[in-house]
């Protein structure tokens, strides 16, 4: 077999696995970018050893350029599982990528010792190992990113479930306290659950409270007006309450016409109006 960079790398990994592991761990431990408080020593050692072992068997196929090839699949899967657990442990992206990149230095040292006399093969081996470890590092980034996105998506759907309560204030009076930014998806869900509650409770008045809505732009205002229009189509009056001073100014600046809707500054005012529309009033006990 002719001596190539790839075969030399395979030899080195084969023969010096224990020493490489030792040097790599020292490299990882001394680097101040790795936070040792986030992971247990035993787990960490085990991950390093396992990764090196999988590397060794994958390198035997002498394919150092395409990490998507089937012989690398076990390495990729192992890296992916490490990444996912590190995302949960709170590591930063650089720390996760460093796990792979820090293997370069020990490998380079070994290669230099072994190939001191053969300059061109040494250069070839360096190029190979750099490409390989770069690809593996990028792979960890991809997995890291994906794990993050999954977390965000899960939180978004949880937020949707949390944030649309329809509250019954009195017989025939519903309140809808809106909290957080209103986008199309959320308004759709809010509208559906509100209309469903209107049917179930037979309510004549609904109070939309926007105290918890941080900003009102034209889109949010349009969503609000749609909700009001849909409730009106079903025969229910809407009152919008909880309009903060800045928001009132924004609404006027934007030229949104809320004149068709009763608006009140606080939920209490809106409730008083709703009661009087129902022919009720709150009176002292005596």
């Amino acid at each position, binding site marked *: 077999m002719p001596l190539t960079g790839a075969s030399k790398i395979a030899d080195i990994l084969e023969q010096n696995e224990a020493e490489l592991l030792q040097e790599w761990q020292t490299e990882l431990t001394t680097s101040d970018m790795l936070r040792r408080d986030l992971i247990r020593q035993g787990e960490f050692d085990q991950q390093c050893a396992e990764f090196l072992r999988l590397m060794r068997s994958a390198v035997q196929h002498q394919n150092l350029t395409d990490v998507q090839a089937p012989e690398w699949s076990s390495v990729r899967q192992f890296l992916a599982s490490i990444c996912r657990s590190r995302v949960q442990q709170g590591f930063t992206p650089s720390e996760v990528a460093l796990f792979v990149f820090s293997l370069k230095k020990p490998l380079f040292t070994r290669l230099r010792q072994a190939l001191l006399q053969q300059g061109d093969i040494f250069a070839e081996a360096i190029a190979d190992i750099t490409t390989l470890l770069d690809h593996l590092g990028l792979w960890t980034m991809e997995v890291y990113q994906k794990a993050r996105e999954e977390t965000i998506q899960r939180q978004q759907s949880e937020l949707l479930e949390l944030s649309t309560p329809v509250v019954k204030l009195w017989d025939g009076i519903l309140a809808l306290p809106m909290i957080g930014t209103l986008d199309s998806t959320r308004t759709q869900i809010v*509208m559906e659950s509100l209309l469903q509650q209107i049917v179930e409770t037979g309510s004549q008045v609904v109070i939309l409270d926007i105290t918890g809505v941080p900003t009102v732009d034209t889109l949010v205002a349009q969503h609000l007006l749609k909700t009001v*229009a849909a409730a009106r*189509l079903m025969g229910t009056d809407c009152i919008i309450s909880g309009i903060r001073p800045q928001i009132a100014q924004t609404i006027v600046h934007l030229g949104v016409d809320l004149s068709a809707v009763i608006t009140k500054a606080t939920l209490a005012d809106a409730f008083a109006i709703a009661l009087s529309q129902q022919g009720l009033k709150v009176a002292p006990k005596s």
Partner: protein
Amino acid sequence: MERIPILKMGQFLLVTIQVDMHDRLALTLQDDLTNRIVKTGARGVLIDISSLEIVDSFIGRVLGNISTVAQILDAQTVVVGMQPAVAITLVELGLSLTGVRTALNVDAGMALLQHSIGLPPGENSDHGQS
């Protein structure tokens, strides 16, 4: 030809739509209703659409037209019992039926009609809190 029955109840006309509305049926209803208002001198029209699952833009417009025509003939129109899905569809279509009065159910609609022509609520009305 298929027709939607129009019932007379005192001074009001009562229409309950219980079949799928298609365009021709809607136009027939508009004609019939206009004729009946003139013939009976009714003061109010109550249209119950609670069993209507689908309302397209044309039906929406016909409902608006009926209301406007009735207004000219001095009769108030109330549309009652619209389903949530129908309401959302109409709003998304940009039809908010301005000018059409709405109520949750037939009871509330009747009370609204009686109030609008200045009648006291009927004896059998169970509105108002007990």
